[in-house]
């Protein structure tokens, strides 16, 4: 198999993009990535498009076919990838396999979602379509509801505290405020969301014990990357190529109730281990990570299940500032899903784009992980029933 590199990365600011259609957003992000790759008039052989819900939200299907036409990339092969909130990383994985196999030389992977044209509760309902159609959805379970129950169990088992969750929210909103692509532009303070009596109104309970500021926003957005073999990347890329050193993907039961221990995110551990094994690295070799913090609890639980911290230690690390910029292991310097936003189909691609920016040392001092050489992404589908992880390295 050929080694695969990322030679182009681009995204558009996430948030509420009333003026853009889903296809517009995918096209803008793709053009940014293609420009970034510096490919000139060279076309791509294949396009993979990650999207979860255009069929439901926009009454539009076949978005990959539509995108190649919009970008004048015909006759490139085009496939849409739907894997819930892990669609983005799944699409990249498929692109990586296509290049690694030698079948395609240049692949564009774009991920996008347009979720703000429906009201919030409809967006929550849309995301809940990934739950079990017989034993979960009909009973009203939502992803925030699942996250709340998961958090309660995690608190009981690992002595996780609300203060630790709050520390994640404050850290990620601070980083989001510094990220020009982030949806949420606002810092929050502990006083405003916890300590002051007015915080009851500012930060209401959403799904016990999770509050409003434990949740990611509903966002529009798109991101894209261009892949080719490392060998070709070294020849054509003017920027340091980023090597896809390892990837992993694993699944778990559809319902949480069928798991021996619902707090054990086995797919996270398996996918991460696969990625480390392929990269011939360990978590200790990684400089920073972009984790799937759709809820604050997930950043902590994933950081432990991926092997960056022992169980029960991830929350303490956040509180101590170890996961902040300048800390031992910075997590979500993009602001994460919590602040960058979570257009579900775009998220896995955006995580990789953010890691590429970091590994190319392109960010300002206020977000750049100093000397970053190896980054990690984890894209979490369902409630941990389909997880994709990447280990990415700066290719010198």
């Amino acid at each position, binding site marked *: 198999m050929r080694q695969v590199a990322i030679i182009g990365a681009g995204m558009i*600011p*996430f*948030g*509420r*993009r*009333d003026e853009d259609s889903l296809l517009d957003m995918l096209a803008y992000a793709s053009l940014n990535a293609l420009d970034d790759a510096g490919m000139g008039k060279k076309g791509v052989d294949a396009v993979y498009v990650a999207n979860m819900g255009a069929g439901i939200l926009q009454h539009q299907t076949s978005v990959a076919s539509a995108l190649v036409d919009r970008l004048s990339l015909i006759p490139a092969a085009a496939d849409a990838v739907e894997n819930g909130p892990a669609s983005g990383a799944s699409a990249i994985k498929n692109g990586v396999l296509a290049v690694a196999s030698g079948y395609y030389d240049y692949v564009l992977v774009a991920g996008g979602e347009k979720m703000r044209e429906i*009201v*919030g509760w409809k967006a929550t309902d849309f995301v809940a379509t990934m739950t079990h159609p017989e034993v979960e959805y009909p009973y009203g379970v939502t992803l925030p509801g699942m996250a709340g129950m998961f958090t309660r169990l995690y608190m009981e088992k690992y002595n996780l505290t609300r203060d630790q969750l709050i520390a994640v929210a404050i850290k990620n909103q601070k980083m989001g405020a510094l990220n*020009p692509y982030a*949806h*949420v*532009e*606002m*810092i*929050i*303070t502990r*006083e*405003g*969301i916890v300590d*002051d*009596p*007015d*915080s*009851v*109104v*500012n*930060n*209401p309970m959403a799904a016990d014990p999770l509050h409003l*500021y434990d949740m990611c926003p509903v966002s*529009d957005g798109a991101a894209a990357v261009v892949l080719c073999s490392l060998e070709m990347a070294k020849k054509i890329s003017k920027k340091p190529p980023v090597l896809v050193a390892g990837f992993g993907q694993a699944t778990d039961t559809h319902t949480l109730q069928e798991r021996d221990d619902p707090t054990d995110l086995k797919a996270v551990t398996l996918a991460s281990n696969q990625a480390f094994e392929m990269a011939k690295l360990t978590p200790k070799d990684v400089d920073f990570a972009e984790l799937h913090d759709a809820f604050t609890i997930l950043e902590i639980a994933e950081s432990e299940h991926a092997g960056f911290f022992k169980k029960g230690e991830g929350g303490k690390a956040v509180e101590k500032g170890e996961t902040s910029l300048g800390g031992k292991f910075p997590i979500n310097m993009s602001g994460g899903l919590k602040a960058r936003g979570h257009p579900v189909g775009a998220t896995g691609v955006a995580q990789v784009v953010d890691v590429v920016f970091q590994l190319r040392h392109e960010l300002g001092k206020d977000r750049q992980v100093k000397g970053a050489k190896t980054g990690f992404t984890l894209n979490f589908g369902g409630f941990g029933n389909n997880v994709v992880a990447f280990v990415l390295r700066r290719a010198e």
Partner: protein
Amino acid sequence: MAVDMDLEALLRAPAIEMAEYPPKMITLANGKKMIVRQADIKDVPVLLQAVRPTLEIPRDYYDIVGARLYAELLGWYRHRVRNEYCLVGQIEGYLVGIVNGRMVDKDIGMSYHTLAIDRGLRVGSHLFAAKMEYHIEILGQQEVWITAESPIGFRRWMIEYGLIKQEGVQHELGGASSYKLTRDLYFETKPRLVAGKRPVSKRFLDEAMDKIMVADEDAISEKICGVKGR
């Protein structure tokens, strides 16, 4: 402008005496302190200056809310609306939101508009709650009639408060559906929706009372549409 006070007396409706809204201070999610206080009729010109840029902002129906609020505030200023009041939210002296309404009679309050200039911090929600507090707790009314012109307003008022739909009742803002907040409903929802502390310390109150500062037009548009236009 010369005014014939004899004729003017006929045009001006007799007002009911209204208790003053006691100022309060709310800590927002970003830790900043918002002072909520009653605006004086003399403040109207500066409030109109803040409302004017919204007339060009269709996003979230700011244009219609702004246009109607502009007319209501002008109507109050020129004594053409009876028993109107206006509450403002200020952070470090700067105007961040406006709410208004009027007292129909001793039992019924009419909620007019809520306009948030700083967004994402529940400024509009806090000010709307202050308006309900004014009608129910300060003016001692039995119910407040409310309608919404934007989906955000509908979500914040009708859904969050669980307002009661009033079939066949005409709200003063026109043909939109009319809802009401009763005293019971207010006190039921107060613990989760009404924030703020009294008294406001002299430093904060002096800063707010000294002058209502208004951001420039571009800054207001940016605050409403988001710094990054989203």
